[in-house]
C-alpha cells in the first residue's frame, strides 16, 4: 500500500524532518519501521538487535535529514541502505567478539546481506510478480493452479515466476547501487 510514495512525498518529508517537526518523525516511523526492522532482523536474526538497529536508523535519519538526496532515488531505498549498513556493522562487531576467523565473518556478512537484499527486492517488486511467487513458494501451488488463482494464462504465470526469480537473483550481486553517506 505504501510502496509507491511519489518523490514529492519524499522531498516534503525531508523538509519537515529538517524543520524539526516531531509529527513528521512519527509518520516516517509508521511508513518505514517494518521495512527497517525486517531487514535488520534478516541480517542479525535477533529481535533485540533488530530493535536497536531500528532505533539507530531512525535516530540517524532524524539527526541528519540532509544526508538524503532526493535526486539519487527514493527515500525508501536510501533508508534500506542505511539500515543494511547499520545491521552489517553490528553483525561484524558481534562476530568479531567471538571465535570466528575473518573469512567466516565475511561469509556470514555476504549471506546475510544477500538475504536482506532479497527481502528488499521482494517488497519492492511489482505486486503481480510478488503474488505469483507467493502462490508458488509459500502456498506450494504448481504454476497452472497459480495461474488460476491469479486469473491469468499459464504462459503469463510462467513468465511472472521466471521474471520474479530473475529479479531476486540480483540480490547475490552486491549492493543495488553505489551508496554514499550514512552512519559508520
Amino acid at each position, binding site marked *: *500500500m505504501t510502496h509507491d510514495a511519489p518523490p514529492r512525498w519524499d522531498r516534503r518529508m525531508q523538509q519537515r524532518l529538517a*524543520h*524539526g*517537526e*516531531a*509529527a513528521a*518523525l*512519527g*509518520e516516517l*516511523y*509508521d511508513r518505514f*519501521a*517494518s521495512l527497517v*526492522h*525486517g531487514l535488520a532482523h534478516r541480517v542479525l536474526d535477533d529481535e533485540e538487535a533488530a*530493535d536497536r538497529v*531500528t*532505533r539507530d536508523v*531512525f*535516530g540517524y535519519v*532524524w*539527526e541528519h535529514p540532509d544526508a538524503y538526496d532526493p535526486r539519487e532515488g527514493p527515500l525508501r531505498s536510501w533508508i534500506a541502505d542505511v539500515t543494511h549498513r547499520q545491521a552489517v556493522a553490528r553483525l561484524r562487531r558481534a562476530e568479531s567478539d567471538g571465535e570466528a576467523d575473518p573469512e567466516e565473518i565475511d561469509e556470514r556478512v555476504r549471506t546475510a546481506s*544477500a*538475504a536482506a537484499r*532479497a*527481502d528488499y527486492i*521482494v517488497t519492492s517488486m511489482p505486486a503481480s510478480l510478488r503474488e505469483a*511467487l507467493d502462490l*508458488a*513458494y*509459500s502456498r*506450494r*501451488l*504448481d*504454476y*497452472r493452479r*497459480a495461474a488460476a488463482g491469479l486469473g491469468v494464462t499459464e*504462459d503469463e*504465470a*510462467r*513468465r*511472472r*515466476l*521466471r*521474471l*520474479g*526469480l*530473475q529479479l*531476486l*537473483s540480483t*540480490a*547475490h550481486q552486491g549492493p543495488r547501487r553505489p551508496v554514499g553517506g550514512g552512519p559508520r
Partner: protein
Amino acid sequence: MTTHAARPHRVLKSLLGAWALAACSPEETAAVEEHLTDCAACAEEALRLRDAVSLLHHEESLDLDPGLRSRVLAHCLGRRPAKIPVPGWAAPYEAETARLDTLLRDIGDADWRAPVRLLWFDGRAPAEREVSVAAVVTHLTAVDAVVAGHLGLPPAVPSDDDPAGAHTAWRDQSRALIRGASFAEAATAERTVKYGRFSLPLPDAFLDRAFECWVHAEDVADAVAYPYTPPTPTHLHRMIDLAARMLPRAIAGRRRAGLAPPAHALSASDAPGRALHLEIEGSGGGHWYISLDSPAAKAAPGTEVAHVALDGLEFCRLAAGRMPPQEAAAGQDGDREAVRDVLFATASLSRM
C-alpha cells in the same frame, strides 16, 4: 526419441522459473532437466534461479513490538529535540491512532467486512448495534472531522464502500490533526470544540478522540481476533482523568433528564459540596473527588460521602459503555445513591 524432444527451447526456457520453484508437472520437470544437460545457457539460468529460490523465506509474523514506536521516537527526540513538538495533550491521540493504523494495515480485505459489535449505554440500559469494520473507521473519521474543523482543516470525505479509501481518509485526517495540533497557537488550544450535546477545550477533545480511537480499535481487534493492548499507563491516566472531570456535568445532565434523583442542598457556586472519592487501581490509576451536587462546586477530600474503588481498565470499559453500570465490580461504601449516580453517569459518557 522421447515426447519432450518435441518441446522447443523457447517453451523449456519459459518453464525455468516454475521448475526452480518445483511448480511444474512431473513430465515438464523431466523435460526441463533433460534440456539442461545440453543447453548451457538454460543450465546457467536454472542454477541462478534455484539459488534465488533459496533466498525466499516464509513470511514470519513480522508484527513489531507495539512499544517500539515510543522508544524509537523518544530516542530520536533525545538526540535532537524537536523544534515543532507534538504537544503533550496530543500525544495519546498520536499513539492511539498509530496503533489502530498498524492494526488496519495488518488485516486482510475480508476482515473489513467482519461484523463489529458496538455497545453503549443509552442512559437507562445497554444498547448495541452491529456494523462493519469499515463503518467503524468511517465513524471515527466523521467525529474526528469535528475537531479538524476547529483547527481550520478541511473535513475528510470518508466512504465505507471502499476499505482502502476509508482507511486512507481516516489516517490522512488523523495525521493532519496531529500536525495541526503541533502548529496550533496557544489561543487555538484554548478554544472549545462543540459536539452535539457537550463541548470540550481542544486539548480535552484530543484526549477524548484518543480514548474513542482505542475503544473502537479494541472493537475491531475483537471482531478479527487480533491481539490488542491497553494504552500506556501515562496515557490511560489522562483518559481516566478526563472522564472523572466530565462526571459532575454528566450527573447534572442525568438529573435534568429525570434519570437521576435531584441534587442535595445545592451549594453556592464555589462552596465545597458533597463529593465521591473515586479510587482507580492498577494501570493509570489515582484518586479523584467527584462533585455530586453541582459541576461548579469544588470537591476535595473531607467532603466525601461515598467511596468507589475500581480497576482502571474496568473503569474505562464502563465509561465506554462496554459494561453495564450494574455489573461494575466496584468496591464501594458510603451513600449508595451517590455511588449509583456516579456509576450510571460514567456509563452514560459512552455514546455513538
